[in-house]
């Protein structure tokens, strides 16, 4: 039986197989999964914002992409994963509302989240093997450490697997 772990807003959870990592209702947030299928270890972070600069100290390590990516990797290494074998998948980063007027930069935080998360993965040398990002619909994601598949549910569009 796989244990299911709910990864809340700005949380970061690293588990050993068998387990399921679940995040509900990602809008502009990112569900980041990094896994090492040989060591059977996976980590998920629910990233809210692209970068921690200019803000106060990060209260939760999963909150900002620039801190979350290295933190997931570090936590996984502590559990015995090898950085060389790590692969990543991401989902989320939607823009829930689109307004034609100006000064709605904050509404496009989703695409900035995707950009920063992808850049941080590249910087860390972890290949991004699959992603489902953007659009204007929220996503609920579930990662299985049995199949290493990320299942994405979108309202009105059904389920996709990456």
């Amino acid at each position, binding site marked *: 039986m796989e244990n299911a772990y709910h990864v*809340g*807003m*700005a*949380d970061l959870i690293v588990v050993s197989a068998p387990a399921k990592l679940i995040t*509900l*209702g*990602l*809008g*502009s*947030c990112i569900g980041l999964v990094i896994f090492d299928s040989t060591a059977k270890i996976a980590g998920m972070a629910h990233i*809210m*914002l692209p970068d921690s600069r*200019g*803000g*106060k100290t990060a*209260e*939760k390590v999963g*909150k900002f992409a620039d801190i979350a990516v290295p933190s997931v990797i570090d936590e996984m290494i502590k559990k015995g994963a090898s950085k060389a074998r790590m692969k990543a998948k991401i989902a989320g980063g*939607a823009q*829930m*509302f*689109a*307004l*034609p*007027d100006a*000064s*709605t930069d*904050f*509404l496009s*935080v989703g695409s900035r989240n995707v950009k920063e998360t992808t850049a941080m993965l590249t910087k860390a040398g972890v290949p991004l093997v699959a992603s489902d990002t953007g659009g*204007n*619909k*929220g*996503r*609920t994601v579930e990662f299985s450490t049995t199949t290493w598949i990320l299942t994405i549910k979108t*309202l*009105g569009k059904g389920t996709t697997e990456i």
Partner: protein
Amino acid sequence: MLDLSSFNNLQLDAIREVGNIGTGNAATALSKLLSCMIDMDVPKADLVSIYSLSEYYGDPDSTVAAVFVRSLGEFGCSLIFIQDEEDSALMVDLLLREQFGGSPPGDLQQEMLDSALSEVGNIILSSFLNAINMLIGTRHQISVPGVAHDMLASILDVVVSIFGQMGDMALVVNTELRIGGSEKDDRRISGNIVMLPDPNALELLLRKLQVL
């Protein structure tokens, strides 16, 4: 920038009163639009942890309809009108029945229904904002409304990304409007107005209300 964690009760009370004035105006506008009775609750102004915001409003996974507008000007602010999907459909139906004289065509497309919803949302939220700007003497301009149907948690990501930049807490003003049933149908329709002042607008608001 204001530190939300140092907010006192007097300040929260003042903001609650602002919500009250806004809601009163919004309820009047909605009542005129739908030609029916509207009930409202005494608004709440709460500081909520951004990490548990969706639990504060209900089930993160539940489907809601939301209308979003942005107010530009001195008092920068975002407003969201959130309803259960079912309530939203009933409200739109009520409006269309009003417009089509009792029997709206049954085959209206989703776009048409969304357009009606965004118009109701727009009227509610603009009236809310007009009252506040009148109160504090600021000029404002309201954006075109945006509509979304999605999971509650996804919609609230907008709120989270605004407040997440300054800390862990969100200041939310909530108020519920209930559309009373007519004689033949006593189903009540509810909706929530969520007001999200920009961080620097909050300071302006408190200063104008003389509680800062």
